[in-house]
């Protein structure tokens, strides 16, 4: 058993339906501090919905999600404060089109955390440097390449100092030569001890960076375990079928 204090997120019997379509059919997951959990599976298996339930972009139909042991589905929870602790990096970046790169990174700290402008900008420049884009601070999202946009999106997420970052197919919309630069940053974050839940199709990343691999299909967790083991030696037929197509 994992020690209670290390568990950040506990998902219990999580279900989610859209109308009559049940996308998640009961998931049980625990995520420890500093753990990198990689979620793989075919399209429509519910991976993205699972992520979106974690930060309540979608509200679960049934089950419970505990954050530091407390349910986030009960009444009286300040949703905005909770979401602050969850960074999310999207497949399509979703940078704020009306703001410069610097403002994209500072707007959260300034407006949500009420940090003074100068301080927020100093922190933002540090983060932009970390993702190699401090020279683009004054550019607008429309002037950036896909890879650059995603790196800014990661800096924007980091600026909120989240406890967990959710990556929703963060490299799927990128040209192949740009995938590397984004994965490199994700790898660094993992090394720095960030708790991450990563939905991806990058098997190399899953194997090398992931602490745990979850294979989802049809709204269930079919198999989970050490990424190297699962990939090298899948136990279930569905996992085998999926991996044979991926590798």
């Amino acid at each position, binding site marked *: 058993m994992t020690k209670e204090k290390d568990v950040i997120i506990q998902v219990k019997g999580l279900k989610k339906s859209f109308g009559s379509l049940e996308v998640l059919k009961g998931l049980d997951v625990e995520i420890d501090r500093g753990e990198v959990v990689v979620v793989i599976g075919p399209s429509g298996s519910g991976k993205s919905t699972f992520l979106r339930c974690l930060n309540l*972009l979608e509200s679960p139909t049934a089950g419970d999600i505990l954050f530091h042991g407390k349910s986030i589905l009960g009444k009286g929870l300040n949703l905005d404060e909770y979401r602050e602790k969850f960074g*999310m990096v999207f497949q399509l970046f979703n940078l704020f*089109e009306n703001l410069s790169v610097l403002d994209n990174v500072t707007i959260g700290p300034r407006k949500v955390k009420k940090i003074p402008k100068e301080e927020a900008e100093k922190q933002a420049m540090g983060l932009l440097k970390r993702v190699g884009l401090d020279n683009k601070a004054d550019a607008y999202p429309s*002037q950036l390449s896909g890879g650059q946009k995603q790196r800014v999106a990661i800096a924007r997420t980091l600026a909120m100092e989240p406890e967990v970052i959710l990556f929703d197919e963060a490299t799927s919309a990128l040209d192949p030569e740009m995938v590397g630069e984004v994965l490199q940053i994700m790898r660094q974050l993992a090394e720095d001890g960030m708790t991450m839940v990563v939905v991806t199709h990058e098997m190399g990343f899953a194997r090398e960076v992931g602490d745990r691999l979850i294979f989802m299909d049809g709204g269930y967790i079919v198999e989970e375990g050490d990424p190297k083991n699962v990939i090298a030696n899948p136990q279930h037929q569905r996992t085998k079928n999926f991996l044979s197509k991926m590798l």
Partner: protein
Amino acid sequence: MILGMDFTFLNKYWFYYANGLKLTLQLAFWTLILASIIGIAMGMVRAQNYKFISLIIDGFINFIRGIPIMVQVFIVYYGIASQLPQFWAAVASLSVNSSVYIAEHTRAGMQAVNKGQMEAARCIGMSKLEANWYIIIPQAIKNILPSLCNEFILLIKNTSIVSVIALHELTYTSNSVRANTFLAYEPLIVTAVIYFVITYTIKKLVGILERRLHAHD
């Protein structure tokens, strides 16, 4: 003499036009402000898709859109706002009329902003209100500026309708000039040119604003 037309009456009657223009501009100014406030507020609320409120707003929009503006002006002037001074009755009915179109443009403009923008804003802990204010509305304004410009031009032209409740704005005064001079045609040409200059100026001003907002695209 231009094309066989005689404009010498302007020497004597130009101040009719000056007064008419002044009133038209006042009508347009207050209508523009009121219609924008009501319309944009209505459109922003409508864009949130709250069921019951949406139903009411849609009903109101369809109701107003379905009634000719001249009938609206009469109803407001003789009925609902009969206690108001003539000028404000006119502003009220013109504002309500324009506001429903502005509301529709605003709603469409906000809903056209990519859904991911709201999600990303919520993910960094912004409330819905903050996300709308800092992220969605600035982008929506850019989207709706061209159609708002159209709406403003329509609104200015619509002020001519209130001549039917005897407000001495531009159209009304040009009719007075016609009656006084026995010229059927020329006074209308002058009126048309004045309207055109106003509306064209608005179009140009909005054009400048648009280019500024799109400087980053």
